[in-house]
């Protein structure tokens, strides 16, 4: 089935998310939609999938104009979607998830689970997915969950399949497998739209590439184009893909972690017997696929985790067992991985957010009252220093763009007398300009002689910032390796393979 989008325009208030976007995808073709975060790719696909209604333009299937008032219509028309955030009910089984919305029923409206199981097995066998229909989705690894998403779409006879940033949560190996699946689907005649901002993947699998920037199609590119060409098309100017930094001037062992184990309420171990050391003036980058214990590790460093065994010593002082406030007061700067959840109070002003971790005493609190004059002066300074683009210090943090929000968090965490900086996903969902700025700040902190721990699931970022790389898999250290370790080795390590044979 051929899919054509013609002059799709979608506005949100005064924002134009999609500006007259046109696109054609042929059956048996993988068409890449390339663009930065926020370029409008997902909005476009949500229009296609009936989640949003386009303000202008039309959708044609095999030349027929179609109107989708909801996902139900789109599904019925043969459009399937593998969502960036899986649209699976975690507590349901695979079969239940696959049948949802498309259930066959028996007597008295009872569910025919057997039919759903058969369908799952059938599709699973056809593509070699190895998915058990009775497994509960939340117990499955993310890569398998994604296959459930694909099965879900295929079980509804999708002829056009949209993959929305499908590799964000996958290991390099899982990514390769996904590429293979996409090629297999292409051979069977499915039209595939592949949305991504990762150039490597595009070049590997795409038949055609359409680049989107700020809601507009800015050009088509050949899969043979170079990374730099694609990147400059995507961002609108030549981009530097590396961070300039001098060789580290190493200090003493500053952060010493020994036998760290972190479990959750139910006793499930997320960080398993971790030991590592970070020296002053050094960046230790923690690599790994999302959900392999990184969150729990950083939270344990900050004292946010309840069930912690082992030892974390900073400059010789034990941190395990101390409260968050006491650890912060010891000079730990912490950039949380999800700024909107853990980093900022969206309804507070920029100024109020800048004193969030210092609400107990000097410099902002005197005799139990907030020293508003001092806070204002401090905020004004930081606004300039960090180039936070906002009308003023009274602007609500929730109204800032992702990059500016992150700058507020970074400004707050770096404005203290630091002994350790922990930055989790410091540039996630941040525009390119802010990424460069934030990277510079992290490198500057390292150059001032403090130990830095950076956690990132983006291999590019890990490689760019690291002096050493620690790879985590299922909460365990697979290895701590030099920053110049080849990517394929890092990729293998991310699947839990020890690098012994590769590292001499």
């Amino acid at each position, binding site marked *: 089935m051929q899919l054509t989008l013609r002059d799709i325009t979608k506005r949100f208030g005064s924002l134009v998310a999609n500006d007259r976007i046109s696109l054609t995808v042929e059956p048996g073709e993988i068409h890449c939609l390339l663009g930065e975060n926020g370029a409008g790719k997902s909005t476009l696909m949500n229009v296609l999938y009936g989640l949003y209604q386009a303000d202008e333009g039309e959708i044609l299937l095999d030349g027929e104009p179609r109107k989708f008032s909801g996902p139900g219509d789109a599904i019925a028309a043969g459009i399937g979607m593998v969502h960036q955030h899986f649209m699976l009910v975690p507590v349901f089984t695979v079969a239940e998830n696959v049948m949802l919305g498309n259930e066959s029923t028996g007597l008295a409206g009872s569910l025919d689970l057997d039919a759903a199981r058969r369908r799952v097995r059938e599709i699973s066998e056809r593509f070699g997915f190895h998915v058990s229909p009775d497994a509960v989705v939340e117990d499955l690894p993310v890569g398998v969950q994604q296959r459930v998403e694909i099965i879900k779409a295929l079980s509804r006879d999708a002829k056009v399949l949209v993959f929305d940033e499908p590799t964000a949560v996958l290991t390099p190996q899982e990514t390769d497998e996904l590429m293979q699946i996409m090629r297999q689907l292409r051979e069977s005649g499915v039209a595939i739209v592949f949305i991504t901002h990762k150039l490597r993947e595009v070049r590997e699998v795409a038949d055609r590439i359409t680049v989107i920037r700020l809601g507009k199609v800015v050009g088509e590119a050949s899969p043979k184009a170079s990374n730099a060409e694609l990147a400059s098309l995507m961002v609108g100017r030549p981009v530097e893909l590396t961070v300039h930094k001098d060789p580290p001037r190493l200090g003493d062992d500053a952060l010493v972690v020994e036998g760290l184990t972190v479990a959750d309420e139910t006793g499930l171990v997320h960080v398993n017997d971790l030991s590592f050391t970070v020296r002053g003036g050094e960046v230790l980058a923690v690599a790994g696929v999302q959900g392999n214990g990184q969150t729990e590790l950083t939270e344990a460093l900050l004292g946010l985790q309840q069930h912690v065994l082992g030892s974390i010593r900073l400059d010789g002082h034990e941190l395990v067992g101390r409260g968050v406030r006491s650890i912060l007061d010891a000079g730990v700067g912490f950039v949380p991985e999800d700024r909107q959840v853990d980093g900022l109070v969206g309804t507070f002003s920029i100024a109020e957010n800048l004193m969030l971790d210092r609400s107990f005493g000097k410099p902002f609190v005197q005799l139990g009252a907030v020293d508003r004059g001092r806070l204002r002066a401090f905020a004004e300074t930081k606004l300039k220093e960090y180039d936070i683009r906002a009308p003023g210090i009274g602007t609500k943090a929730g109204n800032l763009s992702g990059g500016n929000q992150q700058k507020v968090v970074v400004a707050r965490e770096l404005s203290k007398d630091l002994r350790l900086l922990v930055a989790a996903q410091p540039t996630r969902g941040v525009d390119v300009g802010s990424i460069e700025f934030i990277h510079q700040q992290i490198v500057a902190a390292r150059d001032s002689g403090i130990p830095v721990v950076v956690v990132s699931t983006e291999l590019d970022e890990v490689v760019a910032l690291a002096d050493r790389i620690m790879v985590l898999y299922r909460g365990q250290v697979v290895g701590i390796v030099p920053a110049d370790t080849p990517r394929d080795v890092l990729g293998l390590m991310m699947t839990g393979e020890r*690098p012994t044979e590769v590292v001499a």
Partner: protein
Amino acid sequence: MSAAKVEATVPDKPVEDEPQVISVVSLKTPVLLTVVAVALLAAVLLGSQAGDTTFRLSTRSDFFELPEITVPAEGTALGAVVVMLLLAAESWRRYATRKRTPGWVAAVYAVVGLVGFLSWAAAGGTVPVVGLLAGALALAVPLVFGALGGVLGERAGIVNIAIDGQLLAGAFAAALVGSVAGSVWAGVLGAMVAGVVVALILGVFAISCYVDQVIVGVVLNVLVIGVTSFMFTQVLAPNTAELNTPPRFSAWAIPVLGDIPLVGPILFRQTPIVYLLYVAVAVVTYALYRTRWGLRVRAVGEHPKAADTVGINVNRTRYRTVLIAGAIAGTGGAFYTLVSVSQFNREMTGGAGYIALAAVIFGKWDPIRATLAALLFGFASNLQGVLSVLGSPVPAQFMLMLPYVVTVFAVAGLVGKSRAPAAVGLPYRKG
């Protein structure tokens, strides 16, 4: 550059592929078990009770009569305390070795504690076990209906604090419609409609206007109290004979089943509304877990966007579920005016809806377990009544307090961790 030379370090043990689990234990259980045992011990020692206690297991009209069991009051109570303390010690031992206290310890503890308490409190008298349990079931009727309504709503993602309002509106409508139509079943129907109306308001505000569900619920309860009290004073009270004298359900023994010893008199010599309750529990459980409708309801409560992306209309599903839940909760209200008292009074539910809500949480959002929890609350209320007749040494006020204290313990998680539907309380906005 030589300063920056980095060596690779690789742990030599193999990487575990399976998820590891260590045991995380909580202090709650051993502490609670100890506190309750000590409290009972203190009560027995301070309030000395001489004499024997008799447990009567049948009613006089029974076809088969079970023998009565007589035990020494204080001895039994003290024996129970000893067993309870041993179980508490076991719980502490497990805590010390980082193990959880298993369910059977808590279950045995509860039964032993109850028997011990009863034999102490009813010293010198006879505990009518059948009456105690049958009465508990009757008192639990509105709670169970309310809890079923609550479970349904929450499974679809809507917190229903307004259960109390639905019960009260149901009681009001049952009295009014029942009186006017002169039929109990018309009264039940009226109660269902009233429950649906309250649910509809809840839906409009919580689903369509995205107002916080807890706020809507609390305010709706106040609104229903206001409206029913106003109507009661203004319309019902001046015309009691025509408008507030509904007919009453009478008990109706089911042949054969009603003759089973112990079980029969408790379960099968009740009013038709109790039988309706059995049906409701069975139907709700089946519908929720075994039908397409139930699958969709649960999907909408767990991950509404996932449901939306497969073409399920989230808000329509929520409306439908909340309205059905309203009808069920409303039916529970009918119990007040068609069974327990045959006339409506202002604020006559006495906050039962809140207890039903606690039963929902206590029952971990499962219809069967919520029903059991509601029965437990019914039992606690009835125990108070039975003991006050027997002349218990515990002041009536403390017995009256019991269901509420139990609820506090229940929601404080002393019954173990539970997981609410993931999207409960969150309005769903379509893009």
